[in-house]
């Protein structure tokens, strides 16, 4: 038990001393996850929107598919992307395995279904009169679509935050695709896994505390935006 208390003590020392290595890892994690979430929003947001407003053949199937993808195990995503980008894979020529780009791809795949599914339900929940009202006031189809998104703004933001919460905390894909290389692809989660196995509890706990704080903040934001949307 003693080593654990010692670890916590060490963790706070590291955090309050603004330990360089710790903060480099935190910043890298944020950079990778924020980039992934931005890309996922750019793709997933419009897709979720289109799924909600358009009637097309196989709509039910895509809804079920996207919802299934929500539960995608992170290691499986890591494995699939790994097989594609490893040197023997079809995209091996790019040489991106064990780089932040590889991790961004993995996290993008994890976050996109979340953003699609939550945007889909957000837009579905929007009053059908929004579109007609915009149209009767002279809006073009795209202007009316933008109005629908604006009406769903808090729910769409909540979708993005939920996606971020998932990727910042995942370890499977980051480990497989990033390789946990110090200074290059070592993120909070992979560092915790490594340092713990090395017995460096203090370092691991320090990162764990920061990760918890981030996760906690994300959830507060998520809750805030969800309650805002309900008020709408």
């Amino acid at each position, binding site marked *: 038990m003693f080593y654990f208390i010692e670890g916590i003590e060490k963790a706070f020392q590291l955090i309050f001393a603004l330990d360089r290595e710790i903060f480099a890892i935190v910043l890298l994690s944020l950079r990778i996850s924020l980039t992934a979430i931005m890309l996922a929003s750019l793709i997933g947001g419009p897709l979720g929107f289109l799924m909600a407003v358009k009637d097309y053949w196989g709509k039910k199937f895509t809804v079920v598919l996207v919802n299934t993808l929500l539960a995608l195990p992170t290691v499986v995503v890591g494995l699939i992307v790994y097989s594609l980008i490893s040197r023997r894979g079809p995209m091996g020529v790019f040489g991106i395995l064990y780089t932040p780009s590889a991790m961004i791809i993995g996290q993008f795949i994890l976050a996109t279904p979340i953003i699609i599914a939550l945007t889909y339900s957000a837009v579905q929940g929007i*009053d059908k009169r*929004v579109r*007609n009202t*915009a149209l*009767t*006031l*002279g809006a073009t189809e795209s202007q009316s679509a933008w109005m629908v998104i604006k*009406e769903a703004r808090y729910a769409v933001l909540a979708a993005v935050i939920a996606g971020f919460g998932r990727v910042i905390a995942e370890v499977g894909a980051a480990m497989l695709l990033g390789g946990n290389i110090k200074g290059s692809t070592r993120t909070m989660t992979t560092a915790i896994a490594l340092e713990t196995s090395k017995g460096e509890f203090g370092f691991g706990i320090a990162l764990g505390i920061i990760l918890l704080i981030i996760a906690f903040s994300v959830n507060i934001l998520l809750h805030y935006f969800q309650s805002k949307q309900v008020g709408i």
Partner: protein
Amino acid sequence: MNEPILKIKNIKKIYNGRIVLDIESLNFQKRKIYAIVGPNGSGKTTLLNILNLLLKPDKGQIFFREQEIINQSDSKLLEIRRKITLVNQDPFLFHSTVHDNIAYGLKIRSLSSAEQLIRVKHALEMVGLPDFEKRSVDQLSGGEAQRVVIARALVIEPEILFLDEPTTSIDQKYIDIVERIIKKIQKEIETTVIFTTHDLSQAYRLADEVISLLNGKIIKQVPENLLWGEIIEVDGSKWFNVVENIKFAVVTEKVGSAYISIDPRDIILSYERFLSSARNSFLGKITKIIEQNHLVKLEVDIGVPLATIITRESFQDMNLNLGSNVYLTFKASAVKLY
């Protein structure tokens, strides 16, 4: 007569194999107010939505200023759509401020912010809600919300303003306000106003022309012997007070101002008052005789003019002339209330 701003020809709309709208031709003049009346399911809203281009008819043509518009390109259609607007029966306000709502139509027309501010202010003054710009729409009462919706439509200065049952979902006390606003819009921004209502008296109060729909078709005859008056209660029975000293016995639950109509075929004409179950009998003078094939339509002045229709045989047997004194008799249940 000036050229119509909006015209439809041979319009048909079919839902599930049933014809819900079948109109041969209809013209709307500039700067006039039109009411589309009819019971629920008569096709009022379908007609309104075809006119405002939300709905495509299955057959027929629509002309905006003599220009056919159904098969126009999207950009041309948008241009026309931007000259008209609709206020829905169950209107929706965007979750934002009053200003943002009213300015929306101006924003998408790329007007400058300064221009938007001026026009929003003016629109709010017109509906009697000055200085409401910064309010959130959540803080509005039902009547205020309805007026903001109207302001949002009129700020565009549309050439045609459509209103679907503008006073159905609001409190009685706001109806008068909304009606006055509609009149004001037509006068001040020279808009053609087309609205639906199931309140016939409202239609006659506001409109220059009333279009009556039944089962998706226009009924040409406006109800005959249409009179405006007051329903009063005397000793437990209801009377319709037309003018002083003339009261019709009526069957109704309500009191207050109303329109009534009496089918001319339901009125019996006689030289003498006779004993019957009919509770209305009035002495009058024949002022007009119109012969229509086998029937004769007579106008009798009993203090107000009432039309009655009798067969040509009766007309000849009774030897009726202009100026003859006759009694008109009809049952209380023959008086139709609106």
